[in-house]
């Protein structure tokens, strides 16, 4: 079975609430069938608006959304057949768990025994069998969350939308729910569009992530690519930790460029710089810079330790390096005893390949 790569398609979608500001600008996005795609971005970046347009609670100001090649702008929400998990679960408080799950089936006029079967299956999927007669208020946050997921899936929708579903849970529960949702997705192969502002969540769960900022998709790629190869400094900043240097390109060849900083010079990988004299922000992941490198690296600098923070599995160092006082290093605690004391000078090295010269901030 060949997968439809344009199962959900946003085609030049614009959205404005007040006719003055565009909250979504020229959105083009293809989601393939069975994919888990996450819309990630800070609040106000337009990701939830996109979800609401897909669900049918907002209409695009311009452009069209296609679901399985059919335009859906004129279809009301209840006819779209899209499951949705809401931020605060939106379980019906006056109905039992069973009635909540049976609701989408009843409105579709499905036979009683068929409903029982489907509800049973959906509840066992989220491991809540036996909770049928509970009221939502009698469930814990995590259980309510799972009921909400089961309810969005029970009527076998083609697409399930999740709007920051784990926002209200505590950290441990959130993590275990992330895996649970991921496994459910893998098992039943439904297309999931997930909205979150938590990058960790996005990285763990998704096939692809669309990073939103300012109403636009900044980068759409798989989690590893997003982390390793951010295409602009917003993505680099937003995803994971990041050390940056602002400077100016003084020399550029095919895959390496020289960047002049305020005090010093480094080699970097030219991503979005084209020619000499371009302003740039160079981004280096903390784990890509090593202390006392054994291998030969083409960037070698010396920095002063400003702060040492113990993190259990690793130690974070804050260095003053090339005028950047916020340069972060992660040192695994298993590594051989280094002399990590405040004020010490240490050698730091990294490959120019890992130092990405991006657009200036």
């Amino acid at each position: 079975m060949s997968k439809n790569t344009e199962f959900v398609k946003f085609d030049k979608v614009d959205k404005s609430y007040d006719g003055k500001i565009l909250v979504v600008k020229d959105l083009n996005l293809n989601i393939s069938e069975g994919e888990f795609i996450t819309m990630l971005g800070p609040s106000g970046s337009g990701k939830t608006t996109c979800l609401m347009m897909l669900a049918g609670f907002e209409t695009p100001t311009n452009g069209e959304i296609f679901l399985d090649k059919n335009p859906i702008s004129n279809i009301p929400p209840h006819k779209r057949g899209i499951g949705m998990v809401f931020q605060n679960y939106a379980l019906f408080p006056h109905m039992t768990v069973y009635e909540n799950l049976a609701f989408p089936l009843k409105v579709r006029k499905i036979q009683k025994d068929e409903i029982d079967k489907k509800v049973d299956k959906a509840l066992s999927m989220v491991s809540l069998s036996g909770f049928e007669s509970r009221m939502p208020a009698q469930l814990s946050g995590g259980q309510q969350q799972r009921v909400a997921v089961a309810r969005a899936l029970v009527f076998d929708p083609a697409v399930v939308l999740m709007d920051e579903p784990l926002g209200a849970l505590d950290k441990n529960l959130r993590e275990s729910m992330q895996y649970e949702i991921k496994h459910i997705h893998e098992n039943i192969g439904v297309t999931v569009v997930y909205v979150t502002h938590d990058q960790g969540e996005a990285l763990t769960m998704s096939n692809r992530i669309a990073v939103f900022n300012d109403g636009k998709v900044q980068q759409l790629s798989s989690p590893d690519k997003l982390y390793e190869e951010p295409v602009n400094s917003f993505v680099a900043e937003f995803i994971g930790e990041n050390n940056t240097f602002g400077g100016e390109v003084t020399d550029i060849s095919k895959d390496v460029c020289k960047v002049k900083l305020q005090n010093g010079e480094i080699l970097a990988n030219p991503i979005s710089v084209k020619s000499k004299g371009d302003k740039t922000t160079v981004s280096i992941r903390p784990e890509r810079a090593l202390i006392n490198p054994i291998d030969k690296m083409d960037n070698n600098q010396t920095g002063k330790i400003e702060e040492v923070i113990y993190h259990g599995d690793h130690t974070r160092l804050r260095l003053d390096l090339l005028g950047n006082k916020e340069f972060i290093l992660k040192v695994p605690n298993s590594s051989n005893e280094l002399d990590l004391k405040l004020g010490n000078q240490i050698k730091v090295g990294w490959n120019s390949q890992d130092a990405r010269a991006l657009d200036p901030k």
Partner: protein
Amino acid sequence: MSSETKQILTTDGIPLEISLKKAERKNKIKAFLLVAPLLLFLIITYIFPIGEMFTRSIDDKMITNMLPKTFKSMETWDGKELPTEEVFASFLSDFKILVDKKEHGKLAQRLNKEKNGFNTITKKLFRQVKRNKIDETQSIKEQIMKVHKRWRNVEYWQAIKRTAPPYTSAKYLKAMDMYLNEDNKITQVSEDRRIHRILWLRTVEVAFFVTVFCFLMGYPIAHLLATLPMKYSNLLMICVLLPFWTSLLVRTASWMILLQQQGVVNDFFVMIGLVSDDNRPEMMYNKVGTYVAMTQILLPFMVLPLYSVMKTISPSLMRAGKSLGGTPFVAFWKVYFPLTIPGIGAGCLLVFILAIGYYITPALVGGASGTLISNQIAYHMKTTLDWSFASAMGLMLLGGVLVIYWLYNKLVGVDNIKLG
């Protein structure tokens, strides 16, 4: 086992329960002192007057105190034939005391209420007593019987005996258009004199329909209030509350201006050609006026509880209903509406209870066919001065409200009420 039944002690060896009580006592006293003024206020202004109303409505002690000896001697009388000499003698001695105190008129009045004709014969007896015509050495029975032939009629003595108990249910029966006849049986008054039952029914009917109208109009308003953005909803809220801040009398008077036959509404109807000028409909001094004015006045009492409940219903619930495949109507009926029931209950109960005791509005715009039981109560308070009858009706109204409250509790549950 013994370790389980053993008292738990504090570290100082005092039983835990006693220690706890001691520790809590101060707080309890403080709490009581805080509510004490209100409690006192309630007792003085609410519970005590209701108790007073109740005793007044069943009180019949006046005549019991007027004829103590008579009733004492009547205890052995079977009430079939004329009473014995002893009864007549004690009646005369009671009567003489009343004449000395100049209270015989009151007695005549009270007895006349029990049976027509007492007025005349009491007056005659009074004249005889005044002129000292009754010789106590002779048979008193014979002499009294000579005063007027009615004194020889056993029915009049039976009527006196009926007034003996210090309490009476007569006022309550009267409010239901019934009375106790000579045989102590509850009887209905003749058909053309039944007015109270119509008034009770009309009161319940008006209160019911006013509640229904308020609900039908208040629900959408409350929904709009709860869903509109802040700046519009505040304005709408002021529109809802504005009549609330206007004096009841002013509002009712403005309805009179609007609804009278030469009023604004009728003028408008004539202007748009809905009715002809010489055939203006009567919208006031009848039930229509009562309905319109009371619905408008009581509307905020429906809107506010509904609003406070609707405000707490997350808009995502309706969205969830729709996204799960429910049409907007199904989502409303299955999801939104059941969640507003606590507000509906509170609003309806509030409006109904207020409407059932409404007084000024029906008095001003109700006319003859639009007056309610409270107007009747006021009439007996102010005009006939039959306070015990007014008290009886007031208490029946109170009892009715309590019954409705109890029914509501049985059907919906009072815990489900949400006033705000």
